């Protein structure tokens, strides 16, 4: 259960780790849009080069990225196959109801790379940004929404707490599973019904302890006079530094590059 790397923080030191989290989120969105705006091989290659640069700059072992790709590899294969067989135009190869066209092949390649780039970009964000920084940045970015009476601070706080307790709950699940196994609980064999029944001895204690934790946390927060976001000041002030401006410049360059590639270089479909 602990092998899921998608969405995990990888603590180490790199330029990307030190960038302003708000900037990282905005650039992630920009790059995702860009990935889907890459209409020919040149612009796709440019986005690809950016992904590789980001992965290398993050100082996180490439193995971690491969692990997070492993989770979605099935989705990549299925969508690529679907695209492969649904292309328009002259078939270059036909078998039963399947026909492969050049357009289909291009589509498949583009879709495949787009999903992979998407995952790599978002993994780079979560690997290099601690959950706290992430929600903090989200809260600030969504601040304007308070005009519409959306409780941005409360939402951010809920996200922070949820993220904070994921590893704790995983650990707890491991412990409870071990304790029930010691009493002969059998979770690996039997029919589907038997196996879902075997989950009860794990889920009940897990829920009980989650409620207990939630209650204790609420009391602890109240003891420190927590009353929501109004009037709270921050310990960590975010300020854009020189490296952040350099990052903005590079992002703009890449965007310009992709747009230019799309306009001036030959379209391949």
């Amino acid at each position, binding site marked *: 259960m602990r092998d899921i790397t998608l969405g995990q923080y990888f603590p180490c030191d790199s330029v990307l780790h030190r960038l302003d989290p708000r900037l990282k989120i905005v650039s992630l969105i920009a790059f995702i849009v860009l990935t889907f705006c890459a209409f020919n091989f040149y612009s796709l290659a440019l986005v690809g080069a950016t992904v590789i640069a980001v992965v290398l700059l993050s100082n996180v072992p490439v193995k971690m990225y491969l692990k997070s790709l492993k989770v979605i590899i099935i989705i990549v294969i299925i969508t690529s196959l679907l695209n492969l067989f649904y292309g328009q135009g002259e078939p270059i190869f036909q078998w039963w109801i399947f026909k492969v066209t050049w357009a289909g092949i291009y589509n498949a390649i583009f879709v495949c790379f787009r999903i992979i780039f998407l995952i790599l970009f978002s993994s780079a964000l979560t690997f290099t940004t601690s959950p706290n920084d992430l929600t903090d940045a989200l809260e600030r970015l969504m601040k304007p929404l308070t005009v519409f009476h959306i409780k941005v601070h409360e939402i951010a706080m809920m996200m922070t707490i949820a993220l904070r307790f994921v590893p704790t709950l995983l650990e707890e699940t491991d412990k409870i599973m071990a304790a*029930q*196994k*010691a*009493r*002969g609980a059998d979770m690996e064999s039997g029919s589907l019904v038997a196996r879902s029944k075997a989950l*009860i001895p794990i889920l009940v*204690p897990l829920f*009980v302890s989650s409620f207990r934790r939630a209650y204790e946390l609420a009391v602890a927060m109240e003891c420190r006079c927590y009353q929501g976001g109004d009037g709270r000041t921050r310990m960590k002030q975010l300020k854009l530094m020189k490296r952040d401006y350099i990052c903005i410049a590079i992002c703009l360059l890449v965007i310009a590059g992709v747009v230019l590639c799309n306009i001036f270089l030959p379209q391949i479909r």
Partner: protein
Amino acid sequence: MSLLNVRDLVYTYSLGSPLEHTAVDSVSFTIKKGEFIGIIGHTGSGKSTLVQMLNGLLKPTSGTIELDGVNIWAKPKEIRRIRFQVGLVFQYPEYQLFEDTVAKDIAFGPTNMGLDSEEIENRVYRSAEFVGLKRELLEKSPFDLSGGEKRRAAIAGVIAMDPDILILDEPCAGLDPVGRDILLSQIYHYHRERGNTVILVSHSMEDVASVCDRVMVMNRARLEMFDTSQNIFSRGEELREIGLRVPQITSIVDNLIEAGVPLSKGVLTVDKAVLDITEYLKKEGRL
């Protein structure tokens, strides 16, 4: 006759990752049937990891565990049988309760063993009695019990499986002083009455000294000493070096010896100390 035979046991957490950590390192020992064994060691010395290997919850990275001469991992499919033979009560076991009544929760283990309902009922009552749970509590929800009662219920749930070896990981942690003593003496009587092997992990030197025949001392993942309680607690200096100490009464007697009073070393209980000291005073003619 040796019941449990452990050779060169090693356990490494997160093997092959940067967080690799060896929690138990080349541990070997033999335990005979009917012994009461204590395990002491500083926090993080690998006690819980070791006992989880003994009942097959963790698979050793290397080394073998033989129960009655048979390697417990010889048939991995049948590891559940080992868990019934070697019962393990976890540190803070009260969080594993889940049924709607205490009786049903205690019956969880025996039910998994596939016993018939009459036998299960028998075992529930007997084990509840062993840990001192009153009958009327058995029909209550386990979540309505006090902390100490929950602890007893959880221990009863393991005793109900009637294991050949009963392992308790810090059963008394967080109980009041009287509760600790009662629980400990109940465990001791259970051991006496059934003749089962019991392994007790504890941070209380007093508890270990008063009930255990032999004591294992863990230090930084290794088994540092394994000897009778008396011999272990006569080595106060070495124990202090690895962050442990001797029972208070033992150190009082040690200090008396140092001050020139001719008493014997390695006294483990207050009763024994009182006996020794009055005998000495009588001999001196001061009593």
